[in-house]
């Protein structure tokens, strides 16, 4: 996850109290709701089509969720800590909004062998002789182990990620969580 996604959901603004302490409660509620959502999403991921070990992408993202108060808003962020919020990047925001990923160099490399799970070619090249196979006219290629001929990475000119609104809880669910956290406190006071 290398992008900071900041939520200031308009739909729940009416649910946000003016009181600063209660705003803090709202932020905590939003943090808990987003964290729970990402954990559930992590638990429901499908097996990797190439038989690679399941990553815990959304589980790791859940541990970067932070709620806080900024001005008169409760804000939740998901992503790297201390990073410039304006910096471009991929990550949770890409999966939520969808988009197309282009390579920084010649091609995107997707691991397709368990031997290189979680490994980029720049790391993998230390351990063996890796050669490229890309037939003319084909829209994809491969990196393979020269010695064993095992296909290690698939090479793609780009990858399109569809938008997935289930990455984050709906605004209604967020509002519900905020209200259920705040109302008992208001009733008790």
């Amino acid at each position, binding site marked *: 996850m290398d992008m900071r996604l900041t939520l200031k959901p308009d739909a729940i603004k009416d649910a946000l109290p003016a009181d600063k302490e209660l705003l803090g409660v709202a932020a905590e509620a939003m943090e808990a709701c987003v964290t729970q959502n990402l954990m559930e999403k992590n638990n429901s991921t499908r097996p990797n089509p190439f038989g690679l070990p399941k990553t815990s992408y959304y*589980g790791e993202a859940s541990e970067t969720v932070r709620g806080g108060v900024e001005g008169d808003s409760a804000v939740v962020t998901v992503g*790297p800590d201390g*990073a410039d919020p304006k910096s471009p990047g991929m990550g949770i925001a890409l999966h939520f909004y969808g988009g197309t990923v282009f390579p920084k160099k010649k091609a995107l490399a997707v691991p397709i062998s368990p031997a290189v799970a979680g490994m980029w070619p*720049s790391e993998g090249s230390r351990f063996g002789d890796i050669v490229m196979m890309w037939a003319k006219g084909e829209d994809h290629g491969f990196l393979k182990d020269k010695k064993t001929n095992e296909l290690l990475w698939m090479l793609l000119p780009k990858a399109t990620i569809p938008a997935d609104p289930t990455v984050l809880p709906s605004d209604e669910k967020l509002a519900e969580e905020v209200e259920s*956290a705040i109302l008992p*406190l208001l009733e008790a006071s």
Partner: protein
Amino acid sequence: MNATEAILRKALVGSDLDTAGWARVDAGLRDRAFFSSQIQSAEVLHGMRSEIAKILHDGKSMSEVRRDIREMLDRTGYDPGDDNRGTIKDLYSRQRLDVMIKTNVRQARGYAKHLSSTTPAALLAYPCYEFVRVLHRRVPRSNWPQRWAKAANAVGFKGVARGTTRMIALKTSPIWTTLNVFGNPFPPFDFNSGMGLISVNAATCKEVGLAEEAKSQTPPDVEMNGSLQAETRIPDDSREADALRAAFGDQVTIENGIARWNPYDPTKTFTTAGVTVTPEGVEGLPPELLALVPALMRTKPQNGVRTLEAITGAIMMLMNGKVSLA
């Protein structure tokens, strides 16, 4: 304090202590150190800490970090030795690097998340944590319920929910530090563990019988909200203090009942593997290398590494036959 700051503020502490040895260091002191089992070089530790911080701050991938740490180890002339090559004692191995990187990343994230989850407002609305699986594991540990029960008994069930199979406790319950092999109230709770914490709301805490105890819960008394002080309380004359001095030498100061890591100071004496480097010169080198010291002492810092670190690294490389000055 965010996760990046939490890791960059840790003191670099080199020693030949192995994992078991570090486990015996006071948790409060250990938390404030960036270390790895049996790594003595401050340069290596500095490089590793910087790379790990890039995961937290820049979203750098694990693969890139492993690649760059290995290249850094190449530059320092690191050699795991034939007995350790390919094992978890080999700093080049993926197994070793992943344990070190993932443990530090999760601790930094866990610390930062614990800060934001234990504010007065957060404790009011979400007084408890539940211990749950957060990350997939090929072979998850199956004994967490037993470890939970043991820890709950050890703390007299203080702040711990009873009569439920759910592992829920107040955020400030001592069960968290008791359950955690690293002694932290946040994940990870063991090496390579995928277990973590989720905040639990006041209504659920009431259902599991913790509402009354939750009322007296206050934010934990730790140095959060800013300055991470690298110190903890240890009696000056204790066996623990003696053990710390023996293991860490002048990297640690213990006085008036407080132990603290000393910041690395390039103007002071720096000792590694029997070679002592001071601002005036070097002791402990074989005569043929001693003659080369004046040239080394004029070495300029490279890549921001302090002069004495660079000199020590160069000396070690010379002694290992990795480079020559010719």
